[in-house]
Every structure is written in C-alpha cells, then in structure tokens.
C-alpha cells in the first residue's frame, strides 16, 4: 500500500480499487480514488468505479450521477455507452441497466450492438425467448458476430431443447447456424500430422494460435512429448532453424526444428520478410519464445481438457495405437480425442464416427488434401470434414437435436 504516500500510478489505483470492490470494501476503495484524484491521477473508468462504491453504500443518487459522468466522456461511441450496461448487469441491477440501455438505443438507433446488450440482459433475467428475439432483431441491423456466440450458447442452454417461436427462428437462421458452425472449429485443437485442419479452421474464419496448427512431429514423438509433459521442448540444446526452399512457392522459409522431439514447423519467416540484419542466430531466440508459448498453451489446454484434440493420421492407425496416444494425453489431463483417418471403404457411412470410448472417437473422411486421388486437390474434402467435425462436436459437447447444426 506504499503507493498511497507517493503519487500513485493510475494502473495501481484501478487495480487496488477493483480488488477492494470485489471484497465490497467501499470505504477503502473510495479513499484510494479520492487520494488519486487529489493528486490529479485520473482515468475515464473512475466514475464507473465510483458508481460501484455508491452501489455498495446504497447512495443511489450519487451512483446515477457517476454513471452520467462516465457517459459524458464520450457521447459518440456506442461501446463506451454499453460499458455502463455491462457494469450494471455485473452489479445485477437489471432495472437500471434497462433504463440506460433504452437511452443507448435512442441515441444510437442505427447500431445493432444495443440489441446484443439487450439479449445479454434478457438472458440474465432468464427470458431466453426475448433474448432470441433481440438477436433476430440484431440481424436486421447487420450480421451476428463473435460477440453473440456466448449469448447464443446461453439461449440454447436456457431453452433446454424446447425452442419456441423466436428461438426456433433464431437457431434455424443461416447467420446463427453459420456462426455456431464456425465457432465449433475453434473448439478443436490440431495435434498434426499436417496443416490440413489449420486450413479448414481458416476456411471457417478461425485463426487459433496452436503448436501443431502449422507444425508436426511423428506419432511416437508426440506420445513422448505428452508423457514427458513437454520436458525440454524448444530448449536451446535442441532447437534450431533450417532454411528450406519450397519449389512450389519459390520461397525460402525458415523452419523451426526441435531435434529431440523431431518437431518441425513453419515460422513464415522468409528471406523477403526478415530484416537484412537478421541472421539465424538473431532469429532463433525469438522463434524459440514463440514455440515455447505455444507449447505452454497446449499443455494448459490438455490440463483443462475442454477442447477436442484432433489427430489426423495419413496412415491407418489401429485402435490400440489411438488408445496409446489418448493414454499419453491423459497423463496430462482427461482429454477428448478425435483421430481422423481416411475411410477405406469409399461408401460414406451415415455416421462418420467410430466411438471407441466416451472420450475417444475415430472419424473418417473420403480424401485428404494431399492424396494423389483427391479429386479436389489441393483443397480438402470440405463437406466430409465438416460432417466429421460437427458429429464429433455434437458427440463431445452438449447435444441439442432440435437445433442440430449438422
């Protein structure tokens, strides 16, 4: 708390005030803000914090004034106005949130964003049909976007498989179906063996950061990586850069190599986009940090076990091999695994998944992009992949048959 006796940094003031408000220590939070303001330290969020202090102390007039003060900083940005609504929803004052939301709608009649906020508010009030109606309305002002995904899921969960007029209309609309389909691709995390799934994610507008999206290692090394909990991955002793010429693109690209795990990945650093002063020696530390972060991220994902991990094998794997990979992953967390292989029988099955265990399934596609007989080469077999992905998504994540996006 030493900063109270010198000029505090605005960041520290915000941090400390929010911490105190979380602990509902309004008097202490007010002292911090007052001292900062006396020393001319100010941030546009201070009035919002004051409003929270007044909420705790029950001074409702002062709270209203603080919110007005916050709005006065920016009268033209709808996002600034919606911050007040979010703050009031967070405080669970839905009545006042509705009041400010009505004002925002009047001020920004052509923006679809207040309808998103209205849907959020209806969800908090457990009125999921009204929330669905708001998202339908938002579509009239533009398109549903990523900010609507959480609300779509909340509505879907809220109506518990019993859609009525508006929710039925919402979930059968192209926009909602499209956005849910695109989002489903983000729930999958590629484990290799090549970039095909990375390009599928790009096709659906998702660009997740991932260790194996643009990189790969042999299956045995992958299992070792997991069973050794990423030990020594991208260490100075095993990491290097290799300059490779790609005859197809005519580009010379640095590839990142980890010799211990036989990992190789694109860096997208080419002779054209690195500075003339850059050398392999100067680039390597940057690239190592990059892949270390991605490895750390993957390890957390395996621990959290919320994503669906996807391993594409360009050679047929036995069930025992799939189980072995799954077991190695499970040494980190209780993961869900989808192994994708090429179907041997060209007759497409109705259900493209073979369920080995509740959290281990095998999916079959007709062609991989690099297969010599792929009629759509160099493109992936989009429809077939999507069939597998949506079925796996439904299998692993809650399934709502009435609004099935498959």
């Amino acid at each position, binding site marked *: 708390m030493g900063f109270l006796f010198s000029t505090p940094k605005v960041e520290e003031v*915000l941090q400390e005030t929010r*911490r105190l408000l979380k602990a509902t220590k309004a008097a202490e939070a007010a002292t911090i803000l007052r001292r900062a303001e006396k020393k001319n330290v100010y941030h546009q969020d201070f009035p919002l914090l004051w409003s929270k202090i007044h909420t705790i102390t029950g001074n409702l007039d002062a709270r209203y004034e603080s919110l007005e003060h916050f709005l006065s900083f920016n009268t033209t940005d709808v996002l600034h106005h919606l911050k007040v609504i979010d703050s009031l929803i967070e405080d669970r004052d839905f009545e006042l949130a509705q009041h400010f939301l009505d004002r925002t709608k009047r001020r920004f009649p052509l923006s679809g964003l207040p309808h998103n906020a209205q849907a959020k508010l209806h969800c908090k009030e457990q009125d999921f049909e009204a929330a669905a109606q708001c998202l339908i309305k938002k579509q009239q002002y533009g398109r549903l976007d990523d900010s609507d995904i959480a609300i779509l899921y909340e509505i879907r969960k809220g109506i518990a498989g019993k859609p009525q007029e508006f929710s039925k209309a919402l979930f059968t609309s192209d926009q909602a179906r499209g956005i849910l389909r695109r989002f489903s691709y983000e729930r999958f995390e590629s484990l290799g063996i090549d970039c095909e799934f990375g390009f599928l994610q790009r096709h659906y507008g998702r660009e997740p950061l991932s260790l194996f999206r643009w990189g790969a290692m042999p299956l045995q090394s992958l299992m070792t990586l997991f069973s050794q909990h990423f030990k020594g991955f991208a260490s100075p002793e095993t990491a290097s850069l290799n300059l490779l010429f790609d005859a197809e693109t005519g580009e010379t690209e640095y590839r990142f190599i980890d010799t211990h795990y036989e990992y190789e990945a694109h860096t997208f650093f080419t002779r054209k986009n690195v500075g003339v002063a850059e050398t392999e020696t100067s680039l390597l530390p940057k690239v190592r940090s990059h892949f270390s972060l991605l490895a*750390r991220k993957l390890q*957390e994902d395996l621990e959290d076990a919320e994503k669906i991990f996807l391993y594409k094998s360009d050679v047929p794997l036995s069930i025992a091999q799939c189980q072995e990979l799954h077991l190695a992953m499970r040494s980190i967390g209780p993961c869900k695994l989808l192994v994708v292989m090429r179907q041997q029988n060209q007759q497409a099955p109705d259900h493209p998944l073979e369920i080995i265990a509740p959290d281990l399934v095998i999916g079959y596609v007709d062609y991989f992009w690099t297969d010599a007989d792929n009629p759509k080469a160099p493109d992936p077999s989009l429809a077939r992949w999507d069939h597998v992905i949506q079925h796996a998504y439904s299998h692993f994540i809650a399934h709502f048959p009435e609004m099935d996006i498959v």
Partner: protein
Amino acid sequence: MNVYEGVVHVFRTAFDNPNLELNYLMATGDIREWDSFKNVEILLACEEYFGFRFRSKEIDAIKTVGDLIEISEKKLASKTP
C-alpha cells in the same frame, strides 16, 4: 501508464512504428504484417511489460485490441498487491 498506453507501446515496438494508432476493434490483419506470428510476439511482449502470464483460455478469447486491453486490465486487477 494505463493498460491502453501499455498496449500501444507494445504494438509500436512490435511493428517498429512510433506513430501507430490503435482502436479497440482492430484485429489480426488490420496492420501490415500483423499475422498469427506477430500475435505471439505481442502476447509475449505484453507478458513482459505487465508482468503476468496469459492463460490459454485468455489467449483464445483475444480477438481484438479491445479484448487484449480488457483481459490485461482484469489480470492486473486480480494480481495480489
């Protein structure tokens, strides 16, 4: 320095452009050479600048500059003083 200014500093350094201006809705691709590799560089620079580490879920939730600022603010606010 507030989080917005910190993030601007990180971006200006990453893109080697001292005059770079940001807005909350900017996303990957909105600046020349802003690709997924640059995103990792920005995340690492933010971690070093603010003194915290992003969790995987937080990284996945960052779609825009506004998301990066908001998540950084929350992480700083939840840091034990």
